[in-house]
C-alpha cells in the first residue's frame, strides 16, 4: 500500500514505470554491460547493473598456471590497456620474488605504459564522444591510437594484447628507433590534442551534455572506492604514480590534474590533461634511457617463498591491484585482482539517479569501463 503511494507520486502519469533493459546488446554499453533502468518518462528513477556476461574465470585460471603462463591472461582483462595490466602483474610477482627489474627495463616499461595510457584515453575519448553523438572525434582518436599501436607492434609484435613485459624485466630490448618513434608521436600529439579540444571542450552542446551530469562528490567517491580519473575529477589528488611510485615514475616530473565539480565534464578535462602529462613523461623518459641489462636474475622456474603480496599501479582507468598468495609451488595459490572498472562501476547507480536516458550513456562512457575487466 505504502509502496503503491510512493510509486504513484514518482511517475509522470501514475502509471507503472517503464523498465528498459539496456544491454547486454546495446550500442553504447561498451561491451556486454546490462543495465536495468526504471524510467519515469525518460527520467531514471532506479537502475541496476547486471554483469558477468564476459566472465571467464581469470582468477581461477591463475591457480592452474605457472606464474609466467598466467602473464598473458591479464592482458585479456582490460584489453584496451593490456600493457598496464601486464606491468601490474609483473611487478606484483617481482615483489613476491623480492626481485626488482633493472632500471633500463623500468624506464622502457614506463614509456610503454604511458603510451598505453594515452591509447586507452584516446579510445575512451572517441567512444565517449560517440555516445554523446559526436561522430568525428572517434576517427581522429583512432588515428592517433594507431600510431601508438604501431610502436607496440614494432616493439613486441602484438598490437592489442601485447604481453610486453616479463616477470623480472623485459624480453625484448628497445628497438633502434623507439626513441625517435615516440618523439615523433609526442610532437604530433601535442597538436592533435588541441584539435580534439577545439571540437569538444568549448562546444556548448558538449558542455550542456556533460556539465553537472553524473556528479560525484569527493566524499562519495572515496566511500565508493572509485579511483583513477573518476576520483581525481572529484577533487581528490590521489595518483599512485606519485603516492607510491613504481616502475620509474619517481624520476619524472608531472602534474596530477584534478577537477572541482566531479561531473562528466571535469572527468573529460582531467583525462585530456592526463594525456598531456603522459606525453610529457614519455618525452622525459626517451631523453635518457639508461643502459644496462633488461632482465633481473629470476631464474627460469619461479618458485616464490610462501607468502602473500599486494601490489597496485595506476592503470589508465584507476587503481589496478594484484593480490597474490604463494604456497611455494610454481603456481600461485590465489590471485585476486582489483580491477578499476569493476569498482568504478559501483558509482554508476548513484550517478544516474534522476538523470535522463541520454545521460545514462554519457555516464557509462565517463566511467570508462571495460567489461573484460569488470567480469574478468
Amino acid at each position, binding site marked *: 500500500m505504502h509502496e503503491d503511494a510512493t510509486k504513484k507520486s514518482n511517475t509522470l502519469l501514475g502509471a507503472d514505470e517503464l523498465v528498459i533493459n539496456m544491454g547486454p546488446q546495446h550500442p553504447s554499453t561498451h561491451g556486454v554491460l546490462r543495465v536495468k533502468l526504471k524510467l519515469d518518462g525518460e527520467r531514471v528513477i532506479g537502475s541496476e547493473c547486471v554483469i558477468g556476461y564476459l566472465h571467464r574465470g581469470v582468477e581461477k585460471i591463475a591457480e592452474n598456471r605457472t606464474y609466467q603462463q598466467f602473464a598473458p591472461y591479464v592482458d585479456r582483462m582490460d584489453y584496451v590497456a593490456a600493457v598496464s595490466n601486464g606491468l601490474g602483474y609483473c611487478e606484483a610477482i617481482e615483489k613476491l620474488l623480492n626481485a626488482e627489474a633493472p632500471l633500463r627495463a623500468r624506464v622502457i616499461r614506463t614509456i610503454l605504459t604511458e603510451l598505453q595510457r594515452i591509447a586507452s584515453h584516446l579510445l575512451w575519448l572517441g567512444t565517449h564522444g560517440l555516445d554523446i553523438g559526436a561522430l568525428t572525434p572517434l576517427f581522429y582518436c583512432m588515428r592517433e591510437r594507431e600510431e601508438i599501436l604501431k610502436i607496440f607492434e614494432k616493439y613486441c609484435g602484438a598490437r592489442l594484447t601485447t604481453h610486453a613485459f616479463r616477470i623480472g624485466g623485459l624480453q625484448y630490448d628497445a628497438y633502434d628507433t623507439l626513441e625517435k618513434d615516440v618523439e615523433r608521436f609526442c610532437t604530433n600529439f601535442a597538436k592533435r590534442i588541441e584539435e580534439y579540444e577545439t*571540437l569538444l571542450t568549448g562546444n556548448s552542446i558538449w558542455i550542456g551534455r556533460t556539465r553537472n551530469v553524473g556528479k560525484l562528490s569527493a566524499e562519495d567517491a572515496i566511500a565508493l572506492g572509485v579511483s583513477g580519473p573518476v576520483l581525481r575529477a572529484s577533487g581528490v589528488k590521489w595518483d599512485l604514480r606519485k603516492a607510491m611510485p613504481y616502475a620509474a615514475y619517481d624520476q619524472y616530473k608531472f602534474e596530477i590534474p584534478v577537477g572541482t565539480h566531479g561531473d562528466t565534464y571535469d572527468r573529460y578535462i582531467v583525462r585530456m590533461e592526463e594525456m598531456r602529462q603522459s606525453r610529457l613523461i614519455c618525452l622525459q623518459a626517451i631523453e635518457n634511457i639508461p643502459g644496462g641489462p633488461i632482465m633481473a636474475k629470476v631464474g627460469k622456474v619461479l618458485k616464490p617463498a610462501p607468502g602473500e603480496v599486494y601490489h597496485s599501479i595506476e592503470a589508465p582507468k584507476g587503481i589496478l591491484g594484484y593480490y597474490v598468495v604463494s604456497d611455494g609451488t610454481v603456481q600461485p595459490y590465489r590471485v585476486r585482482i582489483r580491477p578499476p572498472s569493476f569498482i568504478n562501476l559501483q558509482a554508476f547507480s548513484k550517478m544516474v539517479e534522476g538523470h535522463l536516458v*541520454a545521460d545514462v550513456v554519457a555516464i557509462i562512457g565517463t566511467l570508462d569501463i571495460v567489461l573484460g575487466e569488470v567480469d574478468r
Partner: protein
Amino acid sequence: MAAAAQGILTFLQTWWVELVCGIVIVAVVPLIAGYVVLVERKLMADMQARLGPMRVGPHGLLQPIADAFKLLIKEDIIPDDADKIIFWLAPIMSVSAAMVSMGALAFGPTFQVARDINVGILFVLGVSSLGLFGIVLGGWASNSHYSLLGALRSTAQLVSYETAAGLAIVSGLLLAGTLKIRAIVEAQQHFGVWFIFLAPVAFFIYLVASIAETNRAPFDLTEAESELVAGYMTEFSGFRWSLYFLAEYANMIVVGAVATTLFLGGWLRPFPNVRWMNWLDAVPALLVAAIGAYCVFRAGKQTVRIQSLFMWAVASSCFVVAALLAVPLVVAPLRFLMPGLHGAFWFLLKVGGYLYTFMWLRFTLPRYRFDQLMRLGWYFLIPLALVNVFSVGSAMMLELEFGWNRWVAVALTLIVTLGAALFLLATSDKRTAAANAASAASSDSYAG
C-alpha cells in the same frame, strides 16, 4: 469502351506534364536519396580522415545500388507482438508523405506537379509533417520500449520545431506576399535580392528547425543510436527500414527545397537582374563539364579495367549534361529551354548546398539531450521567431509606408532581432543553470 479510351486520352492530354513529373518524383527520388547517402558517407569519410565506400564501383559509385539490392532481399521481420497492420503501414506513411509533399515543389519554373495550387508552401509543410505519423505509429506498433521512447520523443520534438519552422517561414511569406511557390521565387526576382538577406534570422531559425524536423544530428534524438539503439526504427529491418531511410532523405530534400525556394531565391541564378553578371549563365555547363573532366582524369588511374570504363561512362554522361546546359546559351532558337534547364540546375545546386550544411553539422556536433532540445525550441527559437516576424513586418512597414531605405530598415530591425536573441540566450543560460541545479529533482521532460 471507346468513350473510356477517349476519356483517358483527354485526361492524359490535360495532365501529362504533371503525370510525368509525378512519375519522375516517385521513380527518381529513391535513386537520388541513395546517392545523397553516398555523398554523405564520402563527405563524412573525408572529414574523418578516411576513404569511405570504395569497393563497389570506382570510388564506391555503385554502393547505393548494392545497398538497395541488399535491403530488398533481406528477410522481412515483424516482431510477434507488433501491431501488424500499423507496423506494415507506418513506413509507407512516412515515405508517401515525403513524396507527396514534393509534388508542390517547383524544381525550376517548369517542373512542378501541383502547379496552380494556391497554398503551395502550406501544402508542402502540411503534407511533409504527416510523415510524423509514420514515425510515431511505427514506434508504437513495434511494441518495444526503445521504439516507444523514440516515438514519444519524435512527437514532442517535431511538434515543437514545426512551430518554430512555421514562424520562420511566415517571415519569408510576409516578404513574398503569397503562398504560391512560383510566385515566391518571382517575388525574389522582383525584389532583386534573395530573402535570406532581408530576413537572415528567419533563415537561421528555419535551418535549425528543419534539421530538427528531419531528425538529423545534432537533433537526432528520435533515433539516437547510442541511447535508443535506433529509436522508432529499432524493430524495422530490410525493406521497411529502407523506406524509413528513404523518407528521411526525401524529407531532407523537401526542407532543403523549401528553404531554397523561400530564402535562397529558388531557381534564380545569383544576381538574376544584373546584366553584367550574365556570364554566370555559363557556370552550370562549365561546372558539369569540369566534373566530367575530373572523371576522365580519374579514369586513367583506375586499376581495374571495368572501373575505368565505368568512370568513362560517368564522364561522358557529365559531358552530355554539360552540352544540354550549354545548348540554350549557344543556339538562339533553343533559348526557351534556358529557364527550365538552368533553373533546375541552380535549384538543385542550392538544395545541395543546404544539405551539405546539414551533413557538416552532423559530423561536427554532439547530440542534444531531450530537455535541452525542448528548451532550445521553446525558450529560444520560438520567441526569437516571433520577434523576427514582428521585425520583418516592421521593416516592410518602414519601407512601404514611411519610405525608408530598404537596407536601413532591414539593418535596424536586424539589430532589434539580434538584441532579442542575445537577451533570450542570456535568460536561457540562466534557465539552463537553474535546470541543471535541479536536475535531480524530477521534472517532466515532455512538458515543453
